[in-house]
């Protein structure tokens, strides 16, 4: 994990505390982003896709990760990006 190379104990403790606070913030953000993707998605289009593409789109809705979703779909990132646009799923950052 981050800070593995840091030598001082106080530095490591401070980093852990910062990370804890950030993780809470990230979890809230993840939920907001997931909800935006779920709400915007064209679910009819998604249901009509072959199983591996459907699985990739649903994974993307849940995690927002284009790289892994593209791998699940067996597509390049760009090809998957075209698919997620057709499925009306936004990239949220």
């Amino acid at each position, binding site marked *: 994990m981050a*800070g593995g190379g840091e030598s001082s104990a106080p530095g490591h403790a401070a980093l852990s505390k910062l990370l804890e606070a950030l993780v809470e913030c990230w979890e809230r953000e993840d939920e907001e982003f997931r909800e935006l993707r779920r709400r915007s998605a064209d679910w009819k289009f998604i249901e009509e896709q072959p199983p591996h593409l459907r699985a990739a789109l649903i994974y993307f809705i849940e995690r927002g990760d284009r790289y892994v979703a593209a791998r699940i779909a067996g597509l390049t990132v760009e090809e998957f990006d075209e698919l997620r646009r057709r499925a009306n799923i936004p990239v949220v950052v």
Partner: protein
Amino acid sequence: MLGVADACFLIDWARFRRRELLASLFEAILIHEEVLAQLRSPSAIDFASRLLARGALRLYPWSAAEEELFIKLRDEVALDPRIPSLERPDLLCLVIAYRAGASLLTENLGVLRVVQFHPTFSRVTAWTALEVLEHLVYGGLAEVRSVEDFLGIVSEYCEDTKHVFSSRRMREVVERVRTWLAK
């Protein structure tokens, strides 16, 4: 000012109606050859090729020392379940931005999170397209007279790329633009 672009940023930005403004914002945008190899669509390849031809986009001369930095960073962050998956090219961009003192242009949530906490790489300035749009305004490259004008440009980007910016990021950027406009 130097920039480093990752693949997702370029793929998305290449679809934006004001894409040509990007080159005016930076002295040069650096790209790793593995990132260039990720581009496949005609729009992204065409955009990147034109930037390369103009010298606005430049291939970064990767070194063994940077490969070591990459391996160290990968070992520190790649297996952390709290960070969205990070592919090798994304981390290469982060290393380049750190070494070159460049702004990292990325739409990758994992990378954006690493720079929030990492003791070394938090020195990197990471911009999503929203911050790039913000800096186009400051640089006089996108003329806006009000926050509404700025939001209009953001809407164009969101429409062209099917993007949504988080409420937190929007709030922070809009506040900075509002302050800048008031000066």
